[in-house]
């Protein structure tokens, strides 16, 4: 493949996913500057590897590279901004109330949702972003993150549960009439 052919293929199939690449890197690093650097590095890597892309599904292919570049980056720059490692996962937030009569409402406040997702431990955050924002299938997430399908499912489910609890606000239910 000549460089020109590689470029054509790249611009046709990979470049359209720049938004996804940036979004993923941004959520993984929680930093605009880091995300830009990572995407640039990942795009150059993707360009030189384009011949190994078999044309199946470009987005997961690119996001795998972005994800791996981000992880290398995070390891290299482990500092004050260091992410929470999987082992030291924060204690699960407690259920807001044991009262089964209460309906838990999910907060719709954008700022709150953003902060909750940013606080989510890295492995969970990664799974949630790939699923909810990028719409990857479990199988694609499993390939991109290099963990078995079962792990993907458990990370997604624990991540969502974590978010649900953080974002839940108890709403008192009106006492039912006629209850005695």
């Amino acid at each position, binding site marked *: 493949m*000549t*460089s*020109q052919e*590689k*470029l054509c293929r*790249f*611009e046709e199939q990979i*470049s359209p996913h*720049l*938004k996804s690449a*940036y*979004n993923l890197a*941004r*959520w993984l690093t929680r930093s605009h500057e880091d*995300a*830009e650097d990572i*995407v*640039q590095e990942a*795009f*150059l890597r993707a*360009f*030189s590897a384009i011949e190994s892309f078999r044309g199946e599904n470009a987005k997961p292919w690119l996001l795998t590279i972005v994800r791996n570049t981000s992880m290398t980056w995070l390891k290299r720059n482990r500092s004050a901004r260091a992410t929470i490692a999987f082992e030291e996962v924060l204690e699960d937030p407690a259920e807001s109330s044991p009262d089964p009569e209460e*309906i*838990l*409402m*999910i*907060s*719709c406040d*954008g700022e709150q*949702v*953003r902060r909750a*997702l940013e606080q989510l431990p890295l492995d969970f955050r990664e799974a*949630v972003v790939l*699923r*909810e*924002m990028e719409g990857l*299938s*479990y199988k694609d997430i499993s390939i991109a993150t290099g963990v078995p399908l079962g792990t993907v*499912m458990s990370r*997604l*489910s624990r991540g*969502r549960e974590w*978010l*649900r609890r953080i*974002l*839940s606000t108890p709403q008192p239910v009106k006492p039912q009439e006629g209850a005695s």
Partner: protein
Amino acid sequence: MNCDDSRIYLPAYLDDELDVAESLRVQKHLADCGNCRQAQDQQLALRSALRDPDMYARPSADFSKRIEAAVRRAAKEEARSHRSAWFDSLRLGSLGWVPVAAVLVVMATIGAFLVMNGGRSSHQELIASAVLAGHIRSLQPGHLIDVPSSDRHTVKPWFQGRLDFSPPVPDLSELGWTLIGGRLDYVDAQPVAAIVYQRRMHNINVFLWPDRGSADDTIRQQDAQGYQILHWNGAEMTYWVVSDLNNAELLEFAQALRGH
């Protein structure tokens, strides 16, 4: 299906990752169970909060352009480093990439030479590749000349104390070759003089150093992928001339220089 099973299957159900039979079982349970429906509503509320367009981090338009340019640059550099006629795209007007790529290009040049010559790496060929590399290096902004002057009486003395020989710097302006300066370079494991002439925006590098080994003053010409390299031996000096100027004119230049 009971509630425990339903809660386990619910996320995959909502993610559309269950097969039809399992989906139907979850559906049926949800129809019958208010608690699980509530759990479903919460999952859906969380989903729509996460999928809110405001949550999505978007790159700036400026960044997108930068990335596109970076990839194109990478493609270009790759094309250049291949054995195709990559020299053709090298023009004085577009040297923005040169500082970054210079080292690569110089290495690729030497490599290309060795490949082109089928591995015959005679001394002369190594020198040819070195002067070509020197020529390309000189085209980087600020690298062409150490002493900018069209006056041979300024250029020639400048080499005193810098070289242990005094290079001839003839004035060829009457013949249409403008002297623009000189600099030190390093070829064949020694410091050499590089005199730079110009005709119409084409730079000509003349590399010379003392060599009494041969008095063969035949001008030998070789074409290195778009560049011309001429070589001959003078009475005391050996000369190497490199330029992107056309064949005929460069030969004319070499003859004028040799005649002085």
